[in-house]
């Protein structure tokens, strides 16, 4: 689960990680009172969206560009004007996709005199089975770019979760980065606090880019990106309220509510599959045979009749020219899937081709249910057959593509 910068910074404050003074504004009416609190000097206005590249991205209001997603204002008045102009707009960055992300909140943050910028991240490290801490002097840069061009400037330590953080880890990373001795202990303290946040809130990523030292010698987290492990939200119920669904794809949100995994793509064939691997493979074979998937919806390993029906409804909302259901039953039973399809098709009239391939657990029962339903379902004998049938069906004259 992703959260906004301002929410991440609130968590930083709670864990004692230094951040600059800032105000969140949701409603233009709040700008007046906030304006009274802004002290003279530079303030930075930042659109709060779930996407990177805000500084280069532009905010549009009614289709017109009104400014960038991050803007520096020389004084409070200008800051308030900028905030007013972008609130309610849509931010378009390289990460947002064509639709952009709604700017429902802005963060107005006090400007600081930066002496130097750093990069700091904590992340679950699959390969080393630990929490890896990555630090670099190349703050403010895209870290993948740094990894490619100056890999020696990324310093990493993997914390064994059974041992936990020890103060020398941050100091050693600081020494490797060439920090001045007086900056080492406070740097390590920040890493320690972020590690505590990571573990306590079941994070999957904390990224601070840039983490800066001010001309006054203070460390400050100028940006903050935190994502949480969805699987652990049950033990951090306070975090669920931080979720901002307006930042996500509506169909993905709907699928997630039904505990389904949904990915939207660019083509015209809907794919309803069980298992991520089979879903990807189905997409691969459709492409191989000249078709183009519109999405894939993984009904997962615990599908019930209800959520198969639900999946099918979500799929129909996403404009598609045909649907391929490809299920190999293991824990999922083919008869359950068939019953879900029949149920969904009792509600809506099917006006596009539907190819169904069932195999494995309770296949015969499933196929019989489909046959008995009398619905215009095309059944396939195997995966290639099914892919071929749907690709052909979606190429018929009168259909797109």
């Amino acid at each position, binding site marked *: 689960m992703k959260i906004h910068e301002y929410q991440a910074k609130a968590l930083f404050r709670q864990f004692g990680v230094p951040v600059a003074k800032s105000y969140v504004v949701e409603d233009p009416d709040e700008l007046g009172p906030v304006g009274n609190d802004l002290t003279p000097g530079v303030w930075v206005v930042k659109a709060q969206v779930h996407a990177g590249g805000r500084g280069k991205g532009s905010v549009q209001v009614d289709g017109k560009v009104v400014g960038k997603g991050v803007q520096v204002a020389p004084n409070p008045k200008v800051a308030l004007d900028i905030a007013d102009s972008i609130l309610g707009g849509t931010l378009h960055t390289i990460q947002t996709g064509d639709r952009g992300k709604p700017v429902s909140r802005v963060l107005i943050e006090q400007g600081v005199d930066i002496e130097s910028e750093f990069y700091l991240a904590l992340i679950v490290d699959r390969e080393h089975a630990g929490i890896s801490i990555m630090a670099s002097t190349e703050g403010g840069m895209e870290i993948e770019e740094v990894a490619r061009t100056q890999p020696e400037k990324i310093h990493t330590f993997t914390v064994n979760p059974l041992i936990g953080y020890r103060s020398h880890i941050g100091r050693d990373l600081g020494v490797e980065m060439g920090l001045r001795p007086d900056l080492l202990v406070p740097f390590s303290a920040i890493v320690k606090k972020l590690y505590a946040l990571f573990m306590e809130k079941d994070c999957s990523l904390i990224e601070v880019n840039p983490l800066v030292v001010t001309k006054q010698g203070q460390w400050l987290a100028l940006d903050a990106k935190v994502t949480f492990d969805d699987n652990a939200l049950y033990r951090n119920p306070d975090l669920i309220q931080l979720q901002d669904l307006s930042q996500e794809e509506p169909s993905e949100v709907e699928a997630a509510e039904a505990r389904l995994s949904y990915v939207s793509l660019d083509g015209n064939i809907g794919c309803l599959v069980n298992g991520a691997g089979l879903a990807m493979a189905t*997409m*691969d074979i459709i492409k191989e045979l000249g078709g183009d998937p519109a999405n894939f919806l993984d009904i997962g390993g615990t599908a019930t009749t209800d959520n198969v029906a639900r999946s099918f409804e979500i799929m129909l909302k996403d404009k598609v020219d045909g649907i391929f259901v490809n299920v190999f039953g293991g824990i999922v039973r083919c008869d359950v899937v068939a019953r879900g399809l029949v149920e969904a098709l009792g509600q809506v009239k099917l006006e596009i081709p539907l190819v169904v391939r069932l195999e494995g657990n309770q296949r015969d029962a499933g196929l019989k249910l489909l046959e008995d339903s009398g619905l215009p379902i095309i059944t396939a004998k195997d995966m290639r057959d099914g892919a071929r049938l749907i690709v052909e069906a979606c190429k018929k004259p009168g259909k797109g593509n």
Partner: protein
Amino acid sequence: MAILVSKDTRVVIQGITGKAARFHLPLMQAYGTQIVAGVTPGRGGDTVDGVAVFDSVGSAVANTGCNVSLIFVPAPFAADAILEAADGGVDLVVCLTEGIPVLDMLRVKRILAQKDTRLLGPNTPGILAPGPRVKVGILPDMVFTPGPIGVISRSGTLTYEAVAQLTELGLGQSAAMGIGGDPIIGYNFIELLAEFEADPETEGIVLIGEIGGNQEELAAEYIKKHVTKPVTAFIAGKTAPKSRRMGHAGAVITGGKGTAKDKIAALEAAGIAVAPTPADIGRTMKEAMK
């Protein structure tokens, strides 16, 4: 003989009184698996489908000599269940549970590194060996047949797909298993490749990978150096859009880009035949066996 399991496999099911366990228990029994015990805390003394229920794995081991545990426990309790199995002294834990918090699994992984118990999964469909007729998990046994091919997969359903194709082409299986789709898992490709390489009944190996991570690249390197038996592979996700889930810092940690193209290139460079589509896995293996 298969790998990991054998005719001496005696299974205990943790979470045996749950719905999914109760559904799959008779399927495993019908296939021939010796399910000798179940565990549900507080339900010791009950029986489910003729299987005695115990209050802990420790007492199940003491009373039944079970040596493999199959976990159906819900995600919040699954990490603890794995550790209970390890403390109880079983040799192998097969954990089907999906959605275990990753920090729990990091701890489990580190703890198991110091113990003798091995883990398959979590988020795996389990393992099936058609020769001794042992199924520890939920794989659809009707598509399996005994024979010389070992199947290792990151995906559940693609495993079934591959096995069905092999069976169709007359290539039976020594054993097939999913390693699990979660970020942190027990057995990885390399460890299972080593098992199949050492297994006298296995003559060829199918490896089914997918985009993300660098396990396939590591496997390719390992196969080149240590595996003498023919290996064929399939990588799912060739046409997948760049995953929106993998953050940048994650990509840096992993090192590789995790694309299907890179993985296929690595496998082919190691002399491994890669199936062009998921429908060609069986055929590709058959050709490699000639």
